[in-house]
């Protein structure tokens, strides 16, 4: 019975070798491999938790989709890295030729990656299509001031505007509504699937899509035919990797498996990464706004509720505005990486004021239970009111869960509300919210162009992006007025009036504003160049 020592050793060795057989034959861990591969081809890898809703410019108005569009589609106007000013991209010239006519002349010899020529007819097709499809998740609302598009010749397009001197129209052409697509590939009246788009190669931006696995991995190849403002990319190609979990995004950038981590790392992650010597944290001007949207039809006492009462519905919104403690959310949940927002236009933009600070709470930005109770009493609302509050767990960063747990706690602590908190994954969320599925819900906004108007027109005019059934002719007039006011001081004044009017109606409840944040390996260059007030991620400026 004595144990054969050699046999035992063999058995144990076999077990050990079996368990770690895979490890043994792998060599160095992923970090080295990734870096090596990337460096060899001069490519860079960008990681994000954002998601693509669709690559069709007519069907998306979100940061994840627009980030990819910025790499693959050309724009008539764009902004040079480091600035937010809209200047000609694939256009040779672009200017107002009369108060209501904006004329754009294209550069000669433009073409798409599939070989098709890019002409003014494609430009008209691209813009008209956004308006015609008017998808609920699309950017058609940005083109509210557009009357018509006319092709003058193969390289000249004339945009006729409803209101003259539209000061933000050049910015709109550089934004979500502005990607120029191939009319020989896209259908004129319906959206196209991502796979069909990739197959059709209707790309004429700095990159083309080489391979595409939706919300997993996108391979971008430098487009040698791009002759726009951004020039030749500083890298040999780029890969976008999508993460479901920001912890994995953080660890992968720390290990060097990806070169740059963009949106959306948590505040705790950012604070932790700042201590890591292997990576560098970059911060840029912030334009992000986080807020709660009220659906005027389906919120408590909304227009289509059984007990519809506009005054009571307003009282509910006012009470929420009085009770919510932004400072607590900013400091406790976001560790100071977000600041309290007291207007629908973030502080720092030309024309931004803070009307909610004085109108609600204690007058200094802190909550006031007394004012909330008074709002209920004045309107005859009986507490507690049940709020079905929806938030998204994967698009606005993992801390959204903590943010909305705190909002629920604050609202319920007042005794005025009973909150039913619900969450839904982003792709479904972005569709459901425009289908009146959510009475009160979270949304965040990352601006398309650096102007206060970008926080007003998309949200508070009829047929807006929110689709929350809010309309106020006085607000619409003020927004139209600021759009066409040439004098800067006068425009600032009108912008202030518009913010005050919106704050009274509380179509949305602004909560927080944040900074842009990216984390990159120490050997990565150029990240700071894309963190400007244009709020566009341009992979072409990043290299290593």
């Amino acid at each position, binding site marked *: *019975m004595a144990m*054969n020592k*050699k*046999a*035992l050793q*063999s*058995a*144990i060795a*076999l*077990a050990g070798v*079996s*368990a770690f057989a*895979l*490890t043994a*034959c*792998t*060599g*160095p*861990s*992923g*970090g080295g*491999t*990734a870096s090596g*591969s*990337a460096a060899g*081809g001069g*490519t860079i*890898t960008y990681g994000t938790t954002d998601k693509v809703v669709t690559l069709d410019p007519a069907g998306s108005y979100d940061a994840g989709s627009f980030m990819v569009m910025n790499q693959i589609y050309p724009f008539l106007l764009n902004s040079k890295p480091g600035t937010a000013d809209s200047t000609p991209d694939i256009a040779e010239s672009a200017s107002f030729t009369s108060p209501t006519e904006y004329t754009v002349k294209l550069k000669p010899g433009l073409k798409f990656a599939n070989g098709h020529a890019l002409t003014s007819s494609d430009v008209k097709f691209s813009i008209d299509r956004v308006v015609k499809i008017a998808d609920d998740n699309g950017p058609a609302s940005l083109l509210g001031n557009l009357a018509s598009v006319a092709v003058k010749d193969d390289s000249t397009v004339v945009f006729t505007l409803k209101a003259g001197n539209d000061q933000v129209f050049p910015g709109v052409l550089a934004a979500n509504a502005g990607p120029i697509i191939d009319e020989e590939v896209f259908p004129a009246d319906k959206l196209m699937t991502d796979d069909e788009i990739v197959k059709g190669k209707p790309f004429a931006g700095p990159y083309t899509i*080489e*391979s595409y696995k939706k919300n997993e*991995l996108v*391979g971008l190849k430098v487009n040698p035919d791009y002759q726009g403002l951004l020039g030749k990319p500083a890298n040999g190609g780029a*890969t976008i*990797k999508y*993460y*479901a*979990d920001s912890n*994995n995004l953080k*660890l*992968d950038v720390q*290990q060097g*498996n*990806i070169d740059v981590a963009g949106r959306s790392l948590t505040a705790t992650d950012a604070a932790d990464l700042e201590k890591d010597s292997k990576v560098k944290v970059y911060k840029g001007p912030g334009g992000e706004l986080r807020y709660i949207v009220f659906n005027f*039809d389906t919120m408590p006492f909304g227009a*289509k509720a059984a007990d519809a009462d506009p005054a009571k519905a307003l009282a509910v919104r006012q009470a929420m505005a009085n009770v919510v403690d932004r400072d607590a959310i900013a400091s406790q949940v976001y560790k100071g990486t977000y600041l309290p927002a007291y207007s629908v236009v973030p502080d720092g933009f030309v024309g931004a004021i803070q009307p909610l600070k004085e109108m609600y709470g204690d007058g200094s930005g802190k909550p006031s239970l007394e004012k909330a109770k008074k709002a209920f009493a004045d309107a005859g609302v009986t507490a507690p009111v049940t709020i*079905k509050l929806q938030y998204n*767990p*994967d698009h606005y960063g993992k801390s959204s869960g903590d943010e909305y747990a705190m909002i629920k706690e604050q609202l319920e602590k007042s005794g005025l509300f009973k909150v039913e908190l619900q*969450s*839904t*994954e982003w*792709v*479904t969320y972005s*569709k*459901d919210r425009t*289908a*009146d*599925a*959510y*009475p009160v819900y979270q949304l965040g906004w990352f601006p398309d162009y650096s102007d206060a108007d970008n926080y007003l027109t998309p949200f508070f005019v009829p047929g807006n992006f929110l689709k929350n059934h809010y309309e106020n002719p006085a607000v619409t007039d003020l927004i139209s007025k600021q759009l066409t006011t040439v004098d800067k001081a006068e425009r600032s004044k009108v912008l202030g009036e518009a913010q005050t009017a919106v704050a009274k109606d509380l179509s949305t409840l602004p909560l927080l504003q944040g900074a842009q944040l990216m984390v990159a390996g120490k050997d990565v260059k150029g990240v700071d160049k894309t963190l400007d007030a244009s709020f566009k991620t341009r992979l072409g400026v990043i290299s290593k």
Partner: protein
Amino acid sequence: MTTLIEAPPTDGEGLLPIKKKTSGGGLGRYILIRFFLIFPTILILVTMVFFLMRTTGDPITAALGGRLPPEQLQERITAAGYDRPIFVQYFEYLAQLITGNFGTTLSDNRPVSEMLATYGAATLELTINALLVALAVGIPLGLVAAHRRDKGPDAGLRVFAILCYATPVFFSGLLFKLTFSVWLGWLPVAGRATPANELALTSLASPTGIYWLDAVRSGNMAALADVMAHAVLPALALGLLTAGIFLRLVRTNVIGTLGKDYVEAGRSRGVSEYRLVTKHAYKPALIPIITVMGLQIAVLLGGAVLTETTFEWKGLGFQLATYLTARDFVAVQGIVVLLAVIVAVTNFFVDIVAALIDPRVRY
């Protein structure tokens, strides 16, 4: 029959029982019966999944009930055909399944069959890796435990087996990530390959979706090493779950066999303990393991949901979690049905292997 088990004919050394044909029936008949049993099994599973998914009503109401105004909710239900009698829907669903049509996902409007094909390969790869780990860890350690019965190593290994089985995958997964990725930096944190290699493998002309296979087919050894590095932690986390069961099973069976008369006879003739364990007690102990292996496929596939989520291994389990969050019942139903079919078919093959090894299990 009892005599056959207690005193089996032996091999040249007079020890190993020699398999003999039984009068129970032929292998062909057994395979045929087992094959035809797959269909009612799958039908029962599909039926259960279909009706269980509807215990909370139709998928649209389950996803949007209480959130969408009643008239809009009704419009959507009617458009999707969920207002028809449930048995009409059921038979229509069965008819669709026969033609390979699993429907279209509610959340991202893509054919479920396409989604299953895209992500099925990733889950298959993970399951195979995990099974290899389970066998590689469970069998040799089970042998050691049996050989050192009631001694220190045996006690240690029994505790190890219980720990393996009792530790949730998400916990062991995080522990592995923390240890091997974050602290030691030996292995990647998540995913199936580094972006550059994944790009290369997915860009192949006709990829199988099983990355190590695609890497071998394309002769990309750097990608193969990278893919395997990414596979280690998920395979360990999931594989150890089953390894604990295999370890206990091998130990029990080998101990049982080591007590047989023919083994005792060998021992008295001076055959080494090593040879007794590895040659004479090991093979008979394999049969129940093969049977259990089939059942463990279901455990591994179930565990794949947690493993894939923990390691961002984008397979069916990862998608299942995503679609559950999105309350996309059509997609969830498609994934569950596919997993059920895989389990049924795997068990069919396992039964055949068991019948080949031990003719007594045949009909």
